[in-house]
């Protein structure tokens, strides 16, 4: 089985993402919560981080030699908030791979835990708005 630990430190393109007010409104509405035109729901951190990272789910699958049929699942998700997300605001994002750990468990078998982090800053602001850390689980089988 290939080892993917060398991907630690890999830098994603990053870039900017402007959070559309209509999308912020629909996100809250789809979650059966009260939409607010002035403040986006903090749950949107995942979307802002992923879009701003300049990387698609398929890009990450390619990096890890996985496909849509590989049984990839979410592992852990952490957001450290330093401010609130605002509809219409533009966010500058930097993203990189934190680590890739090979693990095994009785039920899960062998898998790689792929962890990447996105630092999100509102354009023009001095400090970060949030830091989003995601871990995805890539199941592995002998011979991969």
């Amino acid at each position, binding site marked *: 089985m290939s080892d993917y630990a060398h991907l630690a430190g890999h830098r994603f393109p990053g870039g900017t993402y402007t959070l559309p007010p209509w*999308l912020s409104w*629909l*996100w809250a*509405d*789809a*979650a*059966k*919560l009260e939409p607010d035109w002035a*403040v986006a*729901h*903090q*749950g*949107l951190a*995942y*979307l802002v981080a992923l879009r701003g990272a300049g990387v698609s789910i398929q890009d990450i699958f390619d990096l890890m030699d996985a496909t*849509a049929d590989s049984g990839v*699942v*979410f*592992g*852990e*998700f*952490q*957001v*450290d*908030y330093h*401010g*609130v997300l605002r509809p219409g605001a533009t966010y500058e994002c930097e993203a990189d791979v934190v680590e890739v750990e090979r693990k095994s468990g009785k039920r899960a078998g062998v898998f790689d835990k792929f962890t990447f982090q996105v630092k999100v800053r509102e354009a023009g602001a001095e400090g970060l708005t949030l830091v989003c850390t995601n871990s995805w689980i890539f199941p592995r089988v002998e011979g991969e």
Partner: protein
Amino acid sequence: MATREVQVGQQLAPFVIESVDPEPMKTMAAILQDPNPIHFDPASTQALGMGDKTVNQGPTNVTWLTEFVQRFAGGPDRLVTIKIRFLGNVFSGDRFECTGTVTAVHAEAGTAELEVGATSDGRPALGGTAVIKIRD
């Protein structure tokens, strides 16, 4: 500077979605640009042996747990950290319930730590921890 009264062992007011609605999953699939049909086509979950109900998106479940925490905290600006583990799928029609407990209070720092989680029709769906501000 006012500090909110929060005690270790205090239970958070439950947050409940009585029946997860399959219709908004279609909107969320479009927003997320997530092409996986398990979120909008029951035939696909059936074909995968997952039953005949669609699967709610993980980001929606995260949004509910985040909402649960920030309601207790007193607003979105009081949320410091949320860390979530994904433990199981949430299906349309499920009863989704968030519960939580205060596990630590740091009066000097003006923060409190919470243990939080969510079940879906009684099955574990999410587990995690959060840190909130308790000082204005």
